[in-house]
Every structure is written in C-alpha cells, then in structure tokens.
C-alpha cells in the first residue's frame, strides 16, 4: 500500500511535463519565428499544468529550449518570489532538472511576465516572454482572414488610424503595455506584456527574445541585433514612463539618471512608496550601496 509520502514524491516519469516530440515541434516553431522576425507562428499548444492565461505559452518555450546544463530564472512583474513565478520555476526545475537562479546575469533562459530585466542581457541569453494577446491588431479587426491579410501585405493602416484616434482623443498615445512595434522593418508585434519602459531594450539587443502565447497558440520572436521600432508619428516621439518620485532607498530618483522602472506600493494610510520593479536587481544594487546585507539576497526558494 502506498503512503502519501510516496505519492507526493516526484515521479521522474510523470514530472516530465513535455515529451520530446512536443518539444521538437515547439523548437521548430521557434526557429521559424526567429527566421521571420515578428511573424506569429502558429503551434500546437499543449495542455500544461498551469491554466491558460497563466503563462502556458512561455512555459512551453522554456521547456522546449532549455538543456540539462542551463540555468533558468523565472519571475513575474519583477518579483521572483511571487506565487506564479515560483510555481513555474518549480515546474521547469522538476521537469528538466535544470538549476535555477534569481540573478539575471547568471541565467541562460529568463522567463518573464511583464518585465525585461534591468540588467542588460548579452549574447547567448534567451528571454522568454509570457504573452496573453499576441495580436497587435486585436482591437482594430476581428476577422481572422483579414488579420492574416493585413500582416501579409504589411497593411497596417488600421493600426495607424487607431493611433491617430488615440492622439486626437487623449493628446497622447495611451498604450501602457503591449506597445506596437515594427520588427525588422516588416511585421508589427504586440510587445505585450512589457511596459513602455522596457520597449527600447528590445531594439538591437544582443539576446534572443521569444514570445509565447499558449491560449492563442502563437510564438513570435526577435533574433539578436534586430531593429524594433515603436510605432509612433514623426512629431510625437515615443516616451517611456516617468519616474514620479524617488524610490524607497533613494537610489533611483527623477533628478538623477532614472535607470530603473519603479512600481508603486500603496500603504494602508493612503500614502505610497515607490520601489524598483526588478526586485533582484534592486537588492544587488542596495548591497553594493551598503544599504543591505549580502546574506539577505537569497530569500527566494529556488
């Protein structure tokens, strides 16, 4: 008779989330995507242990591209310790047997939702982004065939019209995340789910960026050293978020060279503090500045 303990023990047969054939298909889709920068490649999205809409697409890519000697970082909105990030990281680790880290500089594959690391990534690193809605023209057209035609013919007039209407109504282009960009002067992509702050990092980056949408069953990619240009009018420059107030530890402020993306932490009394979104990066910075003990870095269960 089995005990609960034996049942709970990781079974190497069942902890393998993705079989080799599936991985091969996903890798092929990924290679196609890299060969046609910005083009949304359809793929057979598998059932994953995470629900649709919770990163199944990114997860499949990570599982497919990662090798036994790779190091993987998974984080969500800048936090490695969040429930979802931790869950996904554990899945990858148990399924593929890879090592994990919170330090972006050490990781070969970084799976993310909503942020690109503040550390500049280098050649050989792969950024895997979890994408809820891969279609940049989603708000503008519903018909699938028409969407396919628009991408095929580079007919993005409707996108431009919606940007025009946006400026007319609001004075600025109001998109916050998922800002549409032209990749390699050809396809327009949704840079969902990253904020505008991170968009310039994609342009001519030395690393690979892979975008996975599990529910929508699409993969698109930006190969290294590729042009990624945000769609904007010649007389309306692309702007990133402003640093509204100095961060809690004072290392990032509007007066100094704002070099990190801040998020607001509202307090019970209605006030708020601003902290760096990229928690790991911030922690290392604070250690270097003597504001934090080095031991406190390893808070996150890997």
């Amino acid at each position, binding site marked *: 008779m089995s005990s609960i303990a034996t049942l709970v023990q990781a079974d190497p047969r069942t902890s393998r989330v993705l079989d080799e054939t599936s991985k091969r298909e996903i890798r092929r889709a990924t290679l196609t995507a890299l060969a046609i920068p910005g083009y949304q490649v359809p793929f057979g999205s598998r059932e994953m242990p995470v629900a649709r809409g919770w990163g199944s697409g990114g997860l499949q890519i990570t599982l497919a591209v990662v090798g036994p000697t790779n190091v993987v970082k998974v984080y969500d909105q800048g936090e490695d310790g969040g429930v979802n990030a931790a869950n996904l990281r554990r899945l990858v680790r148990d399924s593929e047997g890879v090592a994990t880290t919170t330090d972006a500089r050490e990781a070969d594959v970084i799976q993310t939702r909503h942020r690109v690391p503040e550390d500049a990534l280098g050649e050989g690193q792969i950024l895997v982004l979890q994408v809820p809605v891969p279609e940049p023209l989603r708000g503008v057209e519903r018909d699938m065939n028409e969407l396919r035609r628009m991408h095929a013919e580079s007919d993005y*007039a409707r996108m*431009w019209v919606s940007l*025009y*209407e946006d*400026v*007319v109504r609001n004075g600025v282009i109001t998109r916050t995340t998922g800002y549409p960009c032209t990749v390699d002067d050809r396809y327009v992509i949704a840079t969902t789910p990253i904020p505008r702050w991170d968009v310039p990092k994609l342009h001519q980056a030395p690393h690979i960026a892979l975008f996975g949408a599990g529910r929508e069953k699409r993969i698109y990619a930006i190969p290294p050293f590729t042009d990624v240009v945000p769609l904007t009018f010649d*007389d309306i420059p692309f702007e990133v978020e402003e640093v509204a107030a100095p961060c809690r530890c004072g290392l990032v402020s509007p007066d100094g060279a704002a070099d990190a993306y801040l998020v607001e932490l509202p307090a019970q009394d209605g006030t708020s503090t601003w902290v760096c979104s990229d928690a790991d990066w911030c922690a290392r910075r604070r250690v270097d500045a003597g504001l934090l003990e080095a031991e406190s870095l390893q808070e996150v269960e890997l």
Partner: protein
Amino acid sequence: MNDWALRVQELGRIYGPGGAECVAGTGPEFGRSVSPTTGAVVGCWDIGFHVSPGEALGVIGESGSGKSTVMRCIAGDQQTSTGRITLRSVDDGATDLGSLTDSERRALRIDQLAVVYQDPSEGLDLHVSAGGNIADRLTAAGWRHFGNIRERAAELLARTEVPLDRMDDPVATFSGGMRQRVQLAKALANRPPVLLLDEPTTGLDASVAAGVLDLIRDLLEETGVAAVVVSHDFNVIETLTRRCLVMHHGRVVEEGLTDQLLEDPQDAYSQRLVGAARG
C-alpha cells in the same frame, strides 16, 4: 486619343457558367440579360471607353443595366470575365488591372484609383472619426507626421464643407449627406488621377443631394481628376459629365456628348429613358 487616364476595352462580366458562348441571345435586342442556353447572367458585355484627365464620363442606365457592374469591375470589387482595364498611371497603361493580384489591386486604391460609393458605409469606417477616415488613406500612403496628417485632413474636410468642429466625431454620427462629403474628402486625400462615383447622390434628400452634387461638380473641375459617374439620374449626368454612355441589359446602346444624348437621343431605348426623365 493621346491623353487618357483610364481605358476600358471589351469589358465583360458573366455570373454563372458558359463564358463567351452564353452571351448569344442576351442583350437589348433580345430584351434579357439571362442566357437562354446556360442561365448565366450577363452582367455586362463588350464595354469599352476611355476617360481623359479633367473629364467626366457618365454611365446612365436603370437598375439591372449593368452600370454598377462596370464600376465595380474597374474598382476591383469584382473580377472581370473578359476584357482589359488599364490606367495611364500604372505601367503607362501596359498592365491589365485584371491581371494584378488582390493585394496589388488594393494598393492602387491608395492613390491611383478612388471610389465614392452610393452607400457611404462602404467607403468609410463608421466607427472612426471623419479625420480618422482620411488619416487611413494618408497613413496607407506613408504619411507619418501627425500634424501634417491632421492639417491635410482638415483641409480636405473644409473643402468638402464638413464643419471642422465635427472632424473628430465618429462618422456614424453624421447625416447621409455629411457622410458623402467625408467619403469625397477621403477619396481625394491622396490626389488620385481617377475617381469613380457610383450614384453619389441617390438616397439623399433633394436639398442635400443638390449641395453634394454642386460640390462634386466643383471638385471635378478643380482637381482635374478623370471621373466616371454612374447614375440613373439625368440631373446628375447633365451637371457633372460632358460625355456619356447609355447602358441597357448589360450593353452600351448609345454613347455621345451629354447634351446630344439629352436633346437628340438616337436609340429607341435612349429616347424612352430621356423622354421619361425629361418629358
């Protein structure tokens, strides 16, 4: 005929099986457009004409005459069965538009060929503002400067007498006559050399129609565009065109100078048509 902008040669459109063989037995002399042999409908057959820059050619006919079929074939909204359609501005007239792919045909609609439809919702996106509809054409043509786009849109709307304070309102909130004005502005946005107008004032109230008609008349004179005006309304044809064709059962039964057709129609059907309109 050195100076032409649009040329149509032996244009034919058949709905149904049979090709050229089913045309026999149809036409004005037989009084029908349906082929007695295959049952196919001969929408139009053996249509040929040319239009020069600054000239407006009228195509008159009653419903079912095939005039709208001809227009849609030229516009690219329909495939032709036979014949050639050429634009001076495309390979100097060497390329038959029918041989182009759908996407090449669509590209022509950006700045080579514009269409004003009877129903404004066919030519406009009703959910988008008046200025936005024009921005659609301008950005398709490569305009990327917001200020310039807005200025050109305002200029066009002013010229078509759309109140400027409505420039940012969605076209769905506009009356029929106003929608037609926006359609005109949009059609002329990229200064196309050829303009097709399909029953541009039909369906509008009389007073509104008169205003739109006058506007079209002025615009045609000012822009020097080569225009084809399809209408069943003699008033429209007389006001806008100086040459025209009369269509019946898919064929051209008579063509001539507009004033000649109205005062001295030769063909029996033309005489009936003019008589009914002019008394």
